[in-house]
Protein backbone atom coordinates (compact mmCIF):
# COMPACT_ATOMS: atom_id res chain seq x y z
CA UNK A 1 0.00 0.00 0.00
CA UNK A 2 2.67 2.49 0.99
CA UNK A 3 4.55 1.99 -2.26
CA UNK A 4 1.49 1.82 -4.41
CA UNK A 5 -0.18 4.80 -2.88
CA UNK A 6 2.90 6.95 -3.18
CA UNK A 7 3.15 5.81 -6.79
CA UNK A 8 -0.43 6.86 -7.29
CA UNK A 9 0.20 10.22 -5.70
CA UNK A 10 3.21 10.69 -7.91
CA UNK A 11 1.17 9.88 -10.99
CA UNK A 12 -1.48 12.32 -9.81
CA UNK A 13 1.00 15.12 -9.28
CA UNK A 14 2.62 14.45 -12.65
CA UNK A 15 -0.70 14.52 -14.41
CA UNK A 16 -1.68 17.61 -12.51
CA UNK A 17 1.08 19.30 -14.47
CA UNK A 18 -0.73 18.60 -17.73
CA UNK A 19 -2.79 21.69 -18.57
CA UNK A 20 -6.42 20.77 -18.05
CA UNK A 21 -7.38 22.12 -21.47
CA UNK A 22 -4.95 19.82 -23.21
CA UNK A 23 -6.08 16.76 -21.27
CA UNK A 24 -9.64 17.75 -22.14
CA UNK A 25 -8.96 17.86 -25.87
CA UNK A 26 -7.34 14.42 -25.89
CA UNK A 27 -10.52 12.79 -24.69
CA UNK A 28 -13.56 14.68 -25.79
CA UNK A 29 -15.92 11.89 -26.66
CA UNK A 30 -17.22 10.93 -23.27
CA UNK A 31 -17.45 14.00 -21.12
CA UNK A 32 -21.21 14.32 -20.99
CA UNK A 33 -21.69 13.81 -17.26
CA UNK A 34 -20.80 16.27 -14.55
CA UNK A 35 -17.67 15.75 -12.50
CA UNK A 36 -17.84 12.90 -9.94
CA UNK A 37 -21.37 11.92 -10.99
CA UNK A 38 -20.13 8.59 -12.37
CA UNK A 39 -18.98 7.58 -8.88
CA UNK A 40 -15.63 5.94 -8.23
CA UNK A 41 -14.74 2.24 -8.44
CA UNK A 42 -15.90 -0.06 -5.68
CA UNK A 43 -13.77 -2.98 -4.60
CA UNK A 44 -15.34 -5.52 -6.97
CA UNK A 45 -15.07 -3.15 -9.92
CA UNK A 46 -18.54 -1.60 -10.28
CA UNK A 47 -19.07 2.15 -10.27
CA UNK A 48 -20.05 3.26 -6.80
CA UNK A 49 -18.43 4.20 -3.55
CA UNK A 50 -15.41 2.25 -2.37
CA UNK A 51 -17.28 -0.63 -0.79
CA UNK A 52 -20.65 -0.61 -2.47
CA UNK A 53 -22.04 -0.33 -6.01
CA UNK A 54 -24.24 2.63 -6.87
CA UNK A 55 -27.04 2.78 -9.40
CA UNK A 56 -24.97 5.15 -11.55
CA UNK A 57 -23.41 3.76 -14.72
CA UNK A 58 -19.65 4.24 -14.60
CA UNK A 59 -17.80 6.57 -16.93
CA UNK A 60 -18.69 10.09 -18.03
CA UNK A 61 -20.79 9.02 -21.00
CA UNK A 62 -24.36 10.05 -21.75
CA UNK A 63 -27.05 8.23 -23.68
CA UNK A 64 -25.12 8.93 -26.87
CA UNK A 65 -21.64 8.02 -25.66
CA UNK A 66 -19.38 5.27 -24.37
CA UNK A 67 -17.22 5.79 -21.31
CA UNK A 68 -14.54 3.72 -19.65
CA UNK A 69 -12.19 3.80 -16.73
CA UNK A 70 -9.61 1.71 -14.93
CA UNK A 71 -8.71 1.67 -11.26
CA UNK A 72 -6.21 0.47 -8.72
CA UNK A 73 -7.17 0.16 -5.07
CA UNK A 74 -5.14 -0.86 -2.08
CA UNK A 75 -6.19 -1.42 1.53
CA UNK A 76 -3.60 -2.04 4.21
CA UNK A 77 -4.90 -3.54 7.44
CA UNK A 78 -3.24 -4.91 10.59
CA UNK A 79 -2.63 -8.34 9.06
CA UNK A 80 -3.35 -8.12 5.35
CA UNK A 81 -2.97 -6.15 2.22
CA UNK A 82 -5.89 -6.22 -0.17
CA UNK A 83 -5.45 -4.84 -3.65
CA UNK A 84 -8.01 -4.63 -6.38
CA UNK A 85 -7.56 -3.56 -9.96
CA UNK A 86 -9.88 -3.54 -12.87
CA UNK A 87 -11.73 -1.63 -15.51
CA UNK A 88 -15.23 -0.87 -16.65
CA UNK A 89 -17.05 0.24 -19.74
CA UNK A 90 -20.26 2.26 -19.57
CA UNK A 91 -22.52 2.04 -22.60
CA UNK A 92 -24.98 4.85 -23.30
CA UNK A 93 -25.54 5.46 -19.59
CA UNK A 94 -27.53 2.24 -19.61
CA UNK A 95 -25.26 -0.78 -19.16
CA UNK A 96 -21.98 -1.17 -17.36
CA UNK A 97 -19.56 -4.07 -17.78
CA UNK A 98 -16.71 -4.45 -15.34
CA UNK A 99 -13.83 -6.74 -14.54
CA UNK A 100 -11.73 -6.68 -11.39
CA UNK A 101 -9.22 -8.86 -9.65
CA UNK A 102 -8.80 -8.80 -5.91
CA UNK A 103 -5.59 -10.03 -4.31
CA UNK A 104 -5.61 -10.74 -0.63
CA UNK A 105 -2.06 -10.89 0.67
CA UNK A 106 -2.01 -12.81 3.97
CA UNK A 107 1.50 -11.57 4.83
CA UNK A 108 2.51 -12.93 8.27
CA UNK A 109 -0.78 -14.80 8.74
CA UNK A 110 0.15 -16.94 5.75
CA UNK A 111 3.39 -17.91 7.50
CA UNK A 112 1.55 -18.70 10.75
CA UNK A 113 -0.87 -20.96 8.87
CA UNK A 114 2.00 -22.72 7.10
CA UNK A 115 0.91 -21.33 3.75
CA UNK A 116 4.04 -19.26 3.44
CA UNK A 117 4.63 -15.58 4.13
CA UNK A 118 2.67 -13.46 1.71
CA UNK A 119 0.43 -16.29 0.52
CA UNK A 120 -2.11 -14.53 -1.67
CA UNK A 121 -5.71 -15.48 -2.34
CA UNK A 122 -7.17 -14.06 -5.52
CA UNK A 123 -10.64 -13.51 -6.77
CA UNK A 124 -11.83 -12.40 -10.17
CA UNK A 125 -15.13 -10.61 -10.59
CA UNK A 126 -16.98 -9.95 -13.80
CA UNK A 127 -19.80 -7.49 -13.31
CA UNK A 128 -22.76 -6.25 -15.26
CA UNK A 129 -25.14 -3.49 -14.21
CA UNK A 130 -28.23 -2.18 -15.97
CA UNK A 131 -29.97 1.09 -15.25
CA UNK A 132 -33.67 0.36 -14.85
CA UNK A 133 -35.21 3.74 -14.13
CA UNK A 134 -34.66 7.30 -13.09
CA UNK A 135 -31.78 9.71 -13.38
CA UNK A 136 -30.03 10.36 -10.08
CA UNK A 137 -28.56 13.63 -11.28
CA UNK A 138 -30.96 15.36 -13.69
CA UNK A 139 -34.37 14.43 -12.27
CA UNK A 140 -34.07 16.86 -9.38
CA UNK A 141 -37.85 17.34 -9.25
CA UNK A 142 -38.59 13.64 -8.72
CA UNK A 143 -38.37 12.04 -5.34
CA UNK A 144 -37.57 8.62 -6.78
CA UNK A 145 -33.97 7.58 -7.22
CA UNK A 146 -32.09 6.06 -10.11
CA UNK A 147 -32.42 2.31 -9.79
CA UNK A 148 -30.13 -0.29 -11.30
CA UNK A 149 -29.78 -4.04 -11.01
CA UNK A 150 -26.51 -5.88 -11.29
CA UNK A 151 -24.70 -9.18 -11.02
CA UNK A 152 -21.13 -9.94 -10.01
CA UNK A 153 -19.85 -13.31 -11.20
CA UNK A 154 -17.04 -14.30 -8.88
CA UNK A 155 -14.34 -16.89 -9.14
CA UNK A 156 -11.92 -17.65 -6.34
CA UNK A 157 -8.60 -18.88 -7.69
CA UNK A 158 -7.59 -20.65 -4.48
CA UNK A 159 -10.46 -23.12 -4.34
CA UNK A 160 -8.66 -25.89 -2.45
CA UNK A 161 -7.69 -23.52 0.36
CA UNK A 162 -11.05 -21.80 0.77
CA UNK A 163 -12.82 -25.17 0.74
CA UNK A 164 -10.44 -26.39 3.44
CA UNK A 165 -11.52 -23.34 5.46
CA UNK A 166 -15.15 -24.41 5.11
CA UNK A 167 -16.41 -22.71 1.94
CA UNK A 168 -18.63 -24.83 -0.28
CA UNK A 169 -17.60 -23.46 -3.63
CA UNK A 170 -14.95 -21.55 -5.54
CA UNK A 171 -17.43 -19.68 -7.71
CA UNK A 172 -20.69 -17.91 -7.19
CA UNK A 173 -22.70 -14.93 -8.41
CA UNK A 174 -23.89 -11.98 -6.33
CA UNK A 175 -27.06 -10.16 -7.37
CA UNK A 176 -27.88 -6.63 -6.28
CA UNK A 177 -30.27 -3.76 -6.69
CA UNK A 178 -29.03 -0.23 -6.04
CA UNK A 179 -30.94 3.01 -5.62
CA UNK A 180 -29.02 6.26 -5.82
CA UNK A 181 -30.22 9.85 -5.51
CA UNK A 182 -28.36 13.12 -5.63
CA UNK A 183 -30.06 15.84 -3.61
CA UNK A 184 -28.22 18.54 -5.49
CA UNK A 185 -29.69 21.51 -3.66
CA UNK A 186 -28.31 20.03 -0.43
CA UNK A 187 -25.13 18.64 -1.95
CA UNK A 188 -25.98 15.17 -0.68
CA UNK A 189 -25.85 11.83 -2.42
CA UNK A 190 -27.55 8.80 -0.92
CA UNK A 191 -27.25 5.22 -2.03
CA UNK A 192 -28.79 2.00 -0.79
CA UNK A 193 -27.95 -1.42 -2.16
CA UNK A 194 -29.49 -4.80 -1.43
CA UNK A 195 -27.24 -7.71 -2.29
CA UNK A 196 -27.99 -11.42 -2.36
CA UNK A 197 -24.69 -13.21 -1.87
CA UNK A 198 -23.01 -16.41 -0.76
CA UNK A 199 -19.59 -14.77 -0.57
CA UNK A 200 -17.44 -14.90 2.53
CA UNK A 201 -15.36 -11.73 2.94
CA UNK A 202 -16.37 -10.43 -0.52
CA UNK A 203 -15.50 -13.90 -1.88
CA UNK A 204 -11.86 -13.90 -0.78
CA UNK A 205 -12.81 -16.83 1.48
CA UNK A 206 -15.02 -18.51 -1.09
CA UNK A 207 -18.77 -18.94 -1.21
CA UNK A 208 -21.17 -20.74 1.08
CA UNK A 209 -20.18 -22.31 4.38
CA UNK A 210 -22.37 -23.38 7.25
CA UNK A 211 -25.23 -23.16 4.75
CA UNK A 212 -25.20 -22.82 0.99
CA UNK A 213 -27.96 -20.19 0.80
CA UNK A 214 -28.04 -16.68 -0.54
CA UNK A 215 -27.87 -14.12 2.25
CA UNK A 216 -29.53 -10.74 1.81
CA UNK A 217 -27.19 -7.92 2.78
CA UNK A 218 -27.58 -4.15 3.02
CA UNK A 219 -25.06 -1.61 1.81
CA UNK A 220 -25.36 2.13 2.15
CA UNK A 221 -23.41 5.24 1.17
CA UNK A 222 -23.77 8.87 2.08
CA UNK A 223 -21.67 11.50 0.35
CA UNK A 224 -21.49 15.25 0.81
CA UNK A 225 -20.22 17.44 -1.99
CA UNK A 226 -17.75 19.89 -0.51
CA UNK A 227 -17.12 21.45 -3.88
CA UNK A 228 -17.19 20.35 -7.50
CA UNK A 229 -14.09 18.20 -7.15
CA UNK A 230 -14.35 16.88 -3.63
CA UNK A 231 -16.87 14.57 -1.99
CA UNK A 232 -16.60 13.21 1.53
CA UNK A 233 -18.75 10.54 3.05
CA UNK A 234 -19.24 7.22 4.74
CA UNK A 235 -20.28 3.74 3.77
CA UNK A 236 -21.43 0.57 5.38
CA UNK A 237 -21.64 -2.93 3.96
CA UNK A 238 -23.00 -5.87 5.87
CA UNK A 239 -21.61 -9.31 5.06
CA UNK A 240 -22.86 -12.82 5.81
CA UNK A 241 -21.35 -14.65 8.77
CA UNK A 242 -21.34 -18.12 7.31
CA UNK A 243 -17.93 -19.66 7.96
CA UNK A 244 -17.54 -21.80 11.07
CA UNK A 245 -13.80 -21.09 11.42
CA UNK A 246 -14.07 -17.34 12.01
CA UNK A 247 -16.59 -14.61 12.65
CA UNK A 248 -17.37 -12.10 9.93
CA UNK A 249 -18.87 -8.65 10.45
CA UNK A 250 -19.83 -5.52 8.55
CA UNK A 251 -17.37 -3.24 6.82
CA UNK A 252 -17.51 0.55 7.14
CA UNK A 253 -15.44 3.39 5.83
CA UNK A 254 -15.17 7.16 5.76
CA UNK A 255 -13.83 8.54 2.52
CA UNK A 256 -12.77 11.58 0.56
CA UNK A 257 -12.94 11.37 -3.23
CA UNK A 258 -11.14 14.04 -5.22
CA UNK A 259 -11.56 14.42 -8.98
CA UNK A 260 -8.75 16.35 -10.58
CA UNK A 261 -10.77 16.33 -13.80
CA UNK A 262 -12.92 13.84 -15.68
CA UNK A 263 -9.93 11.62 -16.29
CA UNK A 264 -8.37 11.28 -12.90
CA UNK A 265 -9.72 10.82 -9.40
CA UNK A 266 -8.19 9.76 -6.13
CA UNK A 267 -10.12 8.30 -3.22
CA UNK A 268 -8.66 8.04 0.25
CA UNK A 269 -10.52 6.31 3.01
CA UNK A 270 -10.21 4.82 6.41
CA UNK A 271 -11.84 1.42 6.22
CA UNK A 272 -12.85 -0.91 9.00
CA UNK A 273 -13.55 -4.29 7.45
CA UNK A 274 -14.63 -6.07 10.62
CA UNK A 275 -13.09 -9.32 11.77
CA UNK A 276 -11.22 -11.23 9.03
CA UNK A 277 -10.10 -14.63 10.38
CA UNK A 278 -7.51 -13.40 12.88
CA UNK A 279 -8.89 -10.17 14.33
CA UNK A 280 -10.49 -6.84 13.54
CA UNK A 281 -9.01 -5.34 10.39
CA UNK A 282 -8.85 -1.65 9.66
CA UNK A 283 -6.57 0.64 7.75
CA UNK A 284 -5.96 3.15 5.04
CA UNK A 285 -7.66 2.69 1.70
CA UNK A 286 -6.35 4.40 -1.40
CA UNK A 287 -7.79 4.22 -4.89
CA UNK A 288 -6.82 5.82 -8.14
CA UNK A 289 -9.17 5.92 -11.11
CA UNK A 290 -8.24 6.89 -14.64
CA UNK A 291 -11.10 7.54 -17.06
CA UNK A 292 -11.36 7.85 -20.80
Amino acid at each position, binding site marked *: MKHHLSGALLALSLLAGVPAARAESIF*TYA*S*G*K*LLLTGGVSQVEGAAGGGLTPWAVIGGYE*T*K*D*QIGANAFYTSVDTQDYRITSQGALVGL*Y*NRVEFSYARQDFDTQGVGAALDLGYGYTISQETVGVKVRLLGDA*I*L*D*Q*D*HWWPQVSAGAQVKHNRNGALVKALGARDDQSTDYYVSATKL*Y*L*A*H*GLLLNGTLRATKANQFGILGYGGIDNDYHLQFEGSLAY*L*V*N*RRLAVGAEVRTKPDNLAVAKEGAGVDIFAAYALNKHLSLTLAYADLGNIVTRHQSGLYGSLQVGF
Partner: protein
Amino acid sequence: MKYLALAALLIATPALAETQTADPFPVISPDGSLYQAFGGHEGLVRITDDLMVNLLADPRTHDFFVAAKRDQIKTGLIQIFCHVMGGGCTYTGKNMTEAHSQLGIREEDFTALVESLQKAMDKNHVPFRAQNRLLAAMAPHHREIVTGAGKG
Protein backbone atom coordinates in the same frame (compact mmCIF):
# COMPACT_ATOMS: atom_id res chain seq x y z
CA MET B 1 -55.71 3.52 6.78
CA LYS B 2 -52.51 5.45 6.49
CA TYR B 3 -51.87 3.70 3.18
CA LEU B 4 -55.33 4.54 1.91
CA ALA B 5 -54.75 8.20 2.63
CA LEU B 6 -51.39 8.01 0.90
CA ALA B 7 -52.92 6.29 -2.12
CA ALA B 8 -55.64 8.94 -2.30
CA LEU B 9 -52.98 11.63 -2.15
CA LEU B 10 -50.96 10.03 -4.91
CA ILE B 11 -54.01 9.79 -7.15
CA ALA B 12 -55.13 13.33 -6.36
CA THR B 13 -51.74 15.00 -6.90
CA PRO B 14 -51.62 14.91 -10.72
CA ALA B 15 -55.20 16.16 -10.87
CA LEU B 16 -54.27 19.08 -8.62
CA ALA B 17 -51.26 19.88 -10.75
CA GLU B 18 -53.45 20.05 -13.83
CA THR B 19 -56.07 22.38 -12.44
CA GLN B 20 -53.58 25.08 -11.39
CA THR B 21 -51.50 26.00 -14.43
CA ALA B 22 -48.24 24.92 -12.85
CA ASP B 23 -45.34 27.38 -12.98
CA PRO B 24 -42.66 25.72 -15.12
CA PHE B 25 -40.09 27.53 -12.97
CA PRO B 26 -41.20 27.20 -9.34
CA VAL B 27 -39.75 29.77 -6.95
CA ILE B 28 -37.22 28.05 -4.67
CA SER B 29 -36.22 31.01 -2.52
CA PRO B 30 -39.35 33.09 -1.82
CA ASP B 31 -37.49 35.41 0.56
CA GLY B 32 -35.04 36.37 -2.19
CA SER B 33 -31.99 35.29 -0.20
CA LEU B 34 -30.71 33.21 -3.10
CA TYR B 35 -31.16 36.17 -5.44
CA GLN B 36 -28.98 38.18 -3.04
CA ALA B 37 -26.35 35.39 -2.98
CA PHE B 38 -26.13 35.80 -6.75
CA GLY B 39 -25.62 39.53 -6.42
CA GLY B 40 -29.11 40.53 -7.52
CA HIS B 41 -29.71 41.92 -11.00
CA GLU B 42 -26.15 43.19 -11.43
CA GLY B 43 -24.80 39.79 -10.46
CA LEU B 44 -27.02 37.98 -12.94
CA VAL B 45 -26.00 40.35 -15.75
CA ARG B 46 -22.32 39.60 -15.09
CA ILE B 47 -22.96 35.85 -14.78
CA THR B 48 -24.94 35.59 -18.01
CA ASP B 49 -22.35 37.74 -19.83
CA ASP B 50 -19.62 35.37 -18.66
CA LEU B 51 -21.82 32.38 -19.47
CA MET B 52 -22.18 33.54 -23.08
CA VAL B 53 -18.42 34.07 -23.39
CA ASN B 54 -17.85 30.54 -22.07
CA LEU B 55 -20.47 29.01 -24.37
CA LEU B 56 -18.83 30.57 -27.40
CA ALA B 57 -15.36 29.53 -26.27
CA ASP B 58 -16.37 25.90 -25.71
CA PRO B 59 -16.28 23.92 -28.98
CA ARG B 60 -19.10 21.74 -27.64
CA THR B 61 -21.53 24.66 -27.49
CA HIS B 62 -20.04 27.26 -29.85
CA ASP B 63 -22.16 26.33 -32.86
CA PHE B 64 -25.44 26.56 -30.94
CA PHE B 65 -24.86 30.12 -29.85
CA VAL B 66 -22.74 31.77 -32.50
CA ALA B 67 -25.71 32.61 -34.71
CA ALA B 68 -28.35 32.88 -31.96
CA LYS B 69 -29.91 36.05 -30.59
CA ARG B 70 -27.62 36.05 -27.61
CA ASP B 71 -28.98 39.19 -25.96
CA GLN B 72 -32.47 37.75 -26.07
CA ILE B 73 -31.26 34.50 -24.47
CA LYS B 74 -29.41 36.44 -21.77
CA THR B 75 -32.48 38.53 -21.01
CA GLY B 76 -34.57 35.36 -20.77
CA LEU B 77 -32.04 33.63 -18.53
CA ILE B 78 -31.85 36.62 -16.21
CA GLN B 79 -35.64 36.67 -15.93
CA ILE B 80 -35.83 32.95 -15.21
CA PHE B 81 -33.00 32.94 -12.69
CA CYS B 82 -34.35 36.06 -10.98
CA HIS B 83 -37.83 34.53 -10.83
CA VAL B 84 -36.83 31.17 -9.30
CA MET B 85 -34.49 32.82 -6.81
CA GLY B 86 -37.16 35.07 -5.43
CA GLY B 87 -36.11 38.32 -7.12
CA GLY B 88 -39.69 38.97 -8.26
CA CYS B 89 -39.19 38.91 -12.05
CA THR B 90 -41.52 37.46 -14.67
CA TYR B 91 -40.29 35.42 -17.60
CA THR B 92 -41.69 36.80 -20.83
CA GLY B 93 -39.92 34.63 -23.43
CA LYS B 94 -40.84 31.43 -25.21
CA ASN B 95 -41.41 28.30 -23.21
CA MET B 96 -38.48 25.90 -23.03
CA THR B 97 -39.92 23.47 -25.55
CA GLU B 98 -40.57 26.17 -28.15
CA ALA B 99 -37.14 27.70 -27.61
CA HIS B 100 -35.19 24.45 -27.95
CA SER B 101 -37.13 21.72 -29.69
CA GLN B 102 -35.64 22.40 -33.14
CA LEU B 103 -32.05 22.53 -31.95
CA GLY B 104 -31.27 18.82 -31.53
CA ILE B 105 -29.63 19.43 -28.14
CA ARG B 106 -28.12 16.26 -26.66
CA GLU B 107 -27.54 15.47 -23.02
CA GLU B 108 -23.81 16.18 -23.35
CA ASP B 109 -24.64 19.64 -24.72
CA PHE B 110 -26.83 20.23 -21.68
CA THR B 111 -23.95 19.19 -19.42
CA ALA B 112 -21.60 21.48 -21.35
CA LEU B 113 -23.93 24.42 -20.72
CA VAL B 114 -24.12 23.56 -17.02
CA GLU B 115 -20.31 23.51 -16.87
CA SER B 116 -20.10 26.92 -18.56
CA LEU B 117 -22.62 28.23 -16.07
CA GLN B 118 -20.64 26.75 -13.18
CA LYS B 119 -17.51 28.53 -14.41
CA ALA B 120 -19.41 31.79 -14.71
CA MET B 121 -20.83 31.41 -11.19
CA ASP B 122 -17.38 30.58 -9.80
CA LYS B 123 -15.92 33.65 -11.43
CA ASN B 124 -18.60 35.77 -9.79
CA HIS B 125 -18.05 34.21 -6.37
CA VAL B 126 -21.42 32.52 -6.02
CA PRO B 127 -21.11 30.05 -3.11
CA PHE B 128 -21.14 26.37 -4.15
CA ARG B 129 -24.33 25.58 -2.21
CA ALA B 130 -26.17 28.50 -3.85
CA GLN B 131 -24.96 27.36 -7.28
CA ASN B 132 -26.32 23.89 -6.65
CA ARG B 133 -29.72 25.21 -5.61
CA LEU B 134 -30.08 27.02 -8.94
CA LEU B 135 -28.78 24.02 -10.90
CA ALA B 136 -31.21 21.72 -9.10
CA ALA B 137 -34.06 24.00 -10.20
CA MET B 138 -32.83 24.01 -13.82
CA ALA B 139 -31.88 20.33 -14.19
CA PRO B 140 -35.45 18.98 -14.65
CA HIS B 141 -35.81 21.16 -17.77
CA HIS B 142 -33.57 18.71 -19.59
CA ARG B 143 -36.86 17.01 -20.42
CA GLU B 144 -38.01 19.94 -22.61
CA ILE B 145 -34.57 20.99 -23.83
CA VAL B 146 -32.79 17.73 -24.69
CA THR B 147 -34.39 16.41 -27.85
CA GLY B 148 -31.34 15.26 -29.81
CA ALA B 149 -29.87 11.78 -30.26
CA GLY B 150 -30.80 9.46 -27.38
CA LYS B 151 -33.00 12.13 -25.71
CA GLY B 152 -32.77 13.27 -22.10
